[in-house]
């Protein structure tokens, strides 16, 4: 570049800075105007008229143009109402300080609300304009850097690992340019020399078994002497033993699609300061909430909001962070921080903060490229969430993102949003209890009249829901966030309090994901939900009594009672969450359509594989008669692999069969015994990431606030009933002979 070019670039640069400054000024001015307007001490009637107008405007915008600039305008509307609420709440609803019995709970409730508003503000910032999905890089890679693929494991089944390893090995990338490492922490020397004989034995056996499996699948097995620093230590051990330019990390149960590396490694050459390419976690099985409420097929998963919107929002601010798996990292970046950080039990996010603070960049690719499993039981789900919450608290304590040097201001806000989110058990608990203060003890912790509640609180709540709908629309249906937060709160609250008190105490616990529930039962940690439900129910009775007995304050009683009723509906729905359905299929079936040959009694028939899961497949077979088939009979499926075009036979056993219009539908269970079988299974399930995307899209729809609320209400009522039925069965000690879940679950 010539000298002249430099000058021009400088002028250009100054020009853009000037423009940027003006734009910021303009925004600050607009904000100041809105703020001034919002902080006027206007009368109640004006507030009512204004909030109604804004609500109507938001609804019209929703119907006409819910995207682009109009989405931001609608959010600005919402923000104005929320700010008016905060202004009013601060200036005229706090109980007087000389009534301590009212003041203390009153202030707690106020702080809880302020927290919610702050989190809303942070999420507004994060997801105001999520980055659109990047175009695929799959065919642009001119250079193929060397990649080490790490699969850390602790106690997962070899079978599960085999699928993951097979899928990893099957990735579409030159075999000599990537190495797959099984990082086994379950077979370390420390474990093998355990004082407890059984443990030592198990570890020894695992060590041998995995070594063999790894060798069969062409994977490097690696273990270490001591289980120090848990997962981070394990990964660091892998780092020290390998030399690839890039590191891909997959959890033991996260099997990559064939195009994983193709879609991700390209970014590293585009940006030399890039340390991370993160991809979403896509789950084949429902989490316990989805499973027990049976929403998995129709409603977007809980984590889809995070991977579908929030990570894209974070990506806009260069703050997309490492989620422990399904990501590619640059070795040279990790070397700077001596590998993965292990101060907290969420090493992933912690590592990302460190590297962001050092000026490294991250990229998020919004395309499911791995498929994994999530905890099946409510207890292990809570265990997983406890780890996340505690880890984030540790990060907040030890790294304090808002003041972390090196982070840009947007990054600080983003990390604040991600970490502070996990304080939600406190406000949730307060919201749950607050109405009871009034209903049971007559405490006035929120001094407002029925009319003020209507003009301020109600409009705030509606606006809040509408804003959520604007922000997350198709990714999160109304009330679902509240439900998830509530079901976690009960057990997360003590966990969060404990980590706040003893920030160094929590240890890394691996979440179990391969459990299955054969019979319907109450979750072992579900009892508190019934107690809470009972108390809230008494609160409702109390409301009715108060309205009848104290008609002179019926307006306030009705408002508070309505709030309590809302809590009760939520608690009722949660009863369904902790009532675990017994289930036949352990994992979700992915729809595929692949030609195959099906072997029965040594005879080959033409067939089509209709759908597959991690454990079995369903095949429509042409030709044979029903008499040829038998339960538990051995059979085989032969098909062509996507990976290399070779054919092989996957041994199965027949579980069930029935005649359909096209032939005979056969449900079968894999019986893999050799490495090649795992490759076949992996190829069936994981080879094609398109099918996962399609599945996600199929349940991504925005029901809207009204329809969503009605749907939630219907579900809550049914789940309350189901929960109570389970509870009664549990009390009477009868084993459920025909669990509701199983009966309902009978589908092909």
């Amino acid at each position, binding site marked *: 570049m010539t000298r002249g070019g430099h000058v021009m670039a400088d002028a250009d640069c100054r020009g853009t800075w000037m*423009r*940027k400054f003006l*734009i*910021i000024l*303009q*925004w600050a*001015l*607009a*904000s100041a*105007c*809105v703020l*001034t*307007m*919002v902080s*006027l*001490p*206007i*009368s*109640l*009637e*004006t507030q*009512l*008229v*204004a909030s109604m*107008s*804004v609500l109507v*405007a938001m609804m019209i915008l929703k119907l006409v143009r819910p995207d*682009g*600039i*109009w989405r*931001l*305008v609608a*959010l*600005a*509307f919402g*923000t*104005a109402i929320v700010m008016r609420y905060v202004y009013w709440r601060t200036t*005229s609803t706090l109980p*007087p300080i*000389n*009534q301590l019995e009212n003041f203390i709970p009153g202030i707690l409730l106020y702080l809880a609300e302020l927290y919610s508003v702050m989190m809303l503000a942070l999420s507004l910032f994060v997801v*105001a*304009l999520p*980055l*659109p999905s*990047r175009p695929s890089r799959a065919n642009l890679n001119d250079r193929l850097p060397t990649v080490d693929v790490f699969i850390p494991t602790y106690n997962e089944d070899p079978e599960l690992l085999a699928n993951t390893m097979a899928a990893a090995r099957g990735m579409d990338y030159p075999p000599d340019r990537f190495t797959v490492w099984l990082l086994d922490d379950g077979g370390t020397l420390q474990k093998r020399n355990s004082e407890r004989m059984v443990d030592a034995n198990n570890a020894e056996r695992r060590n041998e078994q995995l070594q063999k499996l790894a060798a069969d699948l062409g994977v490097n097995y690696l273990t270490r002497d001591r289980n120090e620093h848990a997962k981070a230590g394990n990964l660091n051990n892998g780092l020290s033993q390998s030399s690839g330019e890039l590191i891909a990390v997959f959890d033991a149960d996260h099997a990559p699609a064939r195009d994983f590396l193709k879609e991700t490694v390209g970014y590293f050459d585009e940006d030399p300061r890039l340390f991370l390419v993160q991809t979403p976690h896509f789950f084949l099985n429902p989490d316990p909430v989805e499973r027990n409420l049976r929403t998995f097929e129709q409603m977007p998963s809980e984590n889809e909001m995070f991977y579908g919107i929030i990570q894209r929002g974070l*990506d806009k*601010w*260069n703050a997309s962070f490492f989620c422990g798996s399904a990501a590619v990292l640059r070795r040279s970046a990790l070397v700077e921080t001596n590998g993965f950080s292990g101060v907290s039990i969420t090493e992933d996010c912690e590592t990302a903060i460190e590297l962001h603070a050092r000026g490294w960049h991250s990229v998020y690719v919004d395309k499911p490229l791995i498929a994994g499993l999530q905890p099946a039981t409510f207890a292990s789900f809570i265990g997983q969430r406890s780890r996340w919450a505690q880890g984030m608290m540790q990060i907040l304590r030890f790294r304090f993102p808002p003041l972390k040097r090196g982070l840009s201001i*947007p990054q600080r806000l983003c990390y604040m949003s991600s970490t502070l989110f996990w304080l939600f058990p406190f406000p949730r608990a307060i919201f749950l209890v607050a109405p009871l203060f009034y209903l049971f003890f*007559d405490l006035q912790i929120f*001094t407002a*009249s*029925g*009319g003020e509640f*209507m*003009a301020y609180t109600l409009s705030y709540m509606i606006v809040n829901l509408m804003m959520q709908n604007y922000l997350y629309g198709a990714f999160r249906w109304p009330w679902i966030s509240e439900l998830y937060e509530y079901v976690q709160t009960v057990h997360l609250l003590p966990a969060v309090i404990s980590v706040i008190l003893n920030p160094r105490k929590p240890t890394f616990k691996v979440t179990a994901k391969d459990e299955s529930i054969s019979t319907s039962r109450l979750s072992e940690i579900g009892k508190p939900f019934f107690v809470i439900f009972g108390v809230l129910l008494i609160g409702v009775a109390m409301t009715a009594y108060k309205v009848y007995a*104290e008609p*002179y*304050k019926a307006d306030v009683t009705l408002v508070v009672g309505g709030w309590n009723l809302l809590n009760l509906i939520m608690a009722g729905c949660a009863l369904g969450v902790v009532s675990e359905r017994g289930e036949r299929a352990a994992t979700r079936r992915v729809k595929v359509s692949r030609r195959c040959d099906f072997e029965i009694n040594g005879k080959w028939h033409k067939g089509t594989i209709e759908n597959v899961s991690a454990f079995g497949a369903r095949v429509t077979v042409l030709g044979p008669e029903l008499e040829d088939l038998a339960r538990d009979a051995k059979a085989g499926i032969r098909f062509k692999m996507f990976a290399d075009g070779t054919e092989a036979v996957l041994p199965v056993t027949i579980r069930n069969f029935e005649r359909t219009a096209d032939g005979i539908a056969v449900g079968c269970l894999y019986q893999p015994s050799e490495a090649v079988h795992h490759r076949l299974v992996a190829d069936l399930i994981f080879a094609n990431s398109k099918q996962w995307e399609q599945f996600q899209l199929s349940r991504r729809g925005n029901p809207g606030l009204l329809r969503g609320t009605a749907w939630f209400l219907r579900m809550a009522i049914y789940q309350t009933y189901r929960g109570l039925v389970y509870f009664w069965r549990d009390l009477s000690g009868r084993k459920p002979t025909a669990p509701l879940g199983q009966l309902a679950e009978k589908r092909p």
Partner: protein
Amino acid sequence: MRSALLLLLLLSASPTAAQTPFDMSGERPAASPAPQSMTSPSVPSATPPAATPPVSAAPLGATPPATSNSAPVEPEVQQAATEPSKRYLVPFTELVLAGEYAQRSWSVFLTPEQAASASEIHLGYQNAIVVAPEASRMTVSINGTTIFDEPIAAADNAADIVTAVPPRVLHAGLNDIVISAVQRHRTDCSIQSTYELWTQIDLARTFLVFDAPDASHWKRVEDLRAVGVDESGATTFNLIVPSMAQTVSTSPTIRLGEALALMANMPNQAFEVSEDDLPEAGPGVAKVVLGPAADVAKVLSAVPQGAEAGPVATVVDDPKLGPSTLVISGPNWQAVDMAIDDIARQVDRPAGSLRTSLGTRNWRTPDVPMLLGAGSFKFSDLGVNTLEFSGRRVRTDFAVGVPSDFYAGAYGQAKILLDAAYSQEVLPGSHIDIYVNDNIAATVPITTVGGEILRHLPIKVTMRHFRPGDNTVAIEAVLLTQADTVCAPGAPSSGGQRFAVFDTSEFVMPDFARVARTPDLAAISGTGFPYGRVDYALPLIMDRAQSETVSAGVTLLARMSVAAGRLIAVDASTAASAVADRNAIFLSALSQVPPTVLAQVGVSGNSSSGWGEAVASIKPNTETTFDEWRQKLSGSGWRGQISSFEDWMTRTFNISMDSFRIFPGRPAEYTPQGSASLLVAQETSPSAGGTWTLVTAPSASALREGVRTLTQQRMWRQLGGHLTTVDSGDDKVVTLPVTHFSFVETQPFSLSNYRLIVANWLSANALSYAVVLTVLSILLGLATAGLLGSLGRHR
């Protein structure tokens, strides 16, 4: 002349040991001839001479230097002594003590002679038949001494209570009188029944009688403050201006009227201006002669000494006009003006000084404190004492003043930090209500069973009903108990105290927006705004030839001066065409009002024919009848439920269609009609530089009557809106609300004041707020879009 002036000054200033109700302490320039005013800041002691510096002690009483006044009085004193002098006590047009507990307090000004005299108090009253005599008592106290405490037992016939006032209870200057009644129902214990309890005080039979022969005689100009009231609660000044036909006399007459009004400061004052003596005489009537010596000689049997030489203001007992006649004279009009100025100086308030209280002691003690911004008062400072109560419904009140540029009616909320207690007897469902100017402003339900002590319980009080000037805030507790539900016969008054309000409670006024509006007649009523502030002689356009019109003018300007707390300089010689763009008052019969003025204030001049004739309204009003039926049927069935929800909405949010106007239009021209006898209308002057107020009536006599009715305390405070009509016959005041106004800045620019002004305006125009908020939100949305477009990653 010099010595005469000095004498006059000493005379006029002597008994000011009593603090004047205008709060002039320290405001007078050092050169002013009233060193005595510094003496006693509190209620005057019983012995005023002791409190007065020796210099001025000389002219007091009957000591030789004062004989110039007292000498000619002698024969009159004998005459008057045949009839004991009465001092009517009640400064109201009506005094009814209603409910289970009622109290009124005010002050009565007494001359030293009256205070020194032996006296007895008469009180005539009648009460409702349902008042139980054994449980009901009436108490009167003067200066803190209980004069009597008698059962209320005059259900059948009016009764008189006559008691001697103990010696040394009365003192010269202001004497505080408190009358209170506790009443219980004979048979009923319901809340409703408390509304049936009343005791009416007979004004004509309630007075002090003084034994001393000179008690009814005034000796000093200052004694005019003891003018008192007549048996209907009114005070009349007969201004005898022999040369009233001369143009030069009008302004001094008005100025004197204002000064006298401020001095006497009675609630219902009227001025009758005439060339010659008027027959009226007796308590509550003051005779004042005004004019140069040559003129006053026509009506007086003897011109006061020195009037030929210099300004004179003195009280004489004139054989022709009667005793205690105030003469203001001098060799010429300039000297008369000086004599008026000397009186005026005592009661005037410098233009720049802030008003800290409104002088109301003559009808309500204590003086009403003025709130010019954020501030708070303890109940004890507002005259509310700790009150314990054993009945069902108790009401106590206090008053606070707000300035004429108070502009927080739409959004503002004052706060009462209530210290109160209720016993365990009191059931939930009881409530404490706050009334502002008799409009409900807040309700606090009592919800706790088993009694409670409320400590500084904050009660938000909407300021919607606050008006410029004094505002009454009442606290009413409605108490339900089990005992009352049972209502055991014979035990209606049993039981201990149920409720207490403590005088440590506070009234807290937040910062409020301050900007005046035109038109706003309530501002005139409250503080004489804007005329109380003008720094030029206010053009007063009236027909000077008619004594009725002049009387009306003096009465009105005097009333406005009292409201303003200072004299309003008036120029009565300006022609209507010369007013230009200044403030002005137009006072004439409708036929004489210039059409341009009528058009400016929005009054139609052409249908004046039928105005003023009382027409009985026999035509049924369909709308009212319909409303009555709706009222009758409301609350029944589901339709009733809906309409009660509607009522709740209206009550809670005060939403009216007015809230939805964005650009209010000018109101239609008002056509005066019907039996209203007086019309007051206000509007900005043509170029919006001043405020024009038109006071008109069908005829000059109707004008005088109308102004007289309007200036009565009870009526005066109802003056408001853009236009007010007064029906002297029915004592009915009708106001037309302000629909279109312009702001008049009264405060130096400050951001916080502007913010509050905007808040109030937007609160009154709800839709405007919604529109502004919407527009700003859209701008913010667009700005955010721009911001997000330039910050962060884009792809």
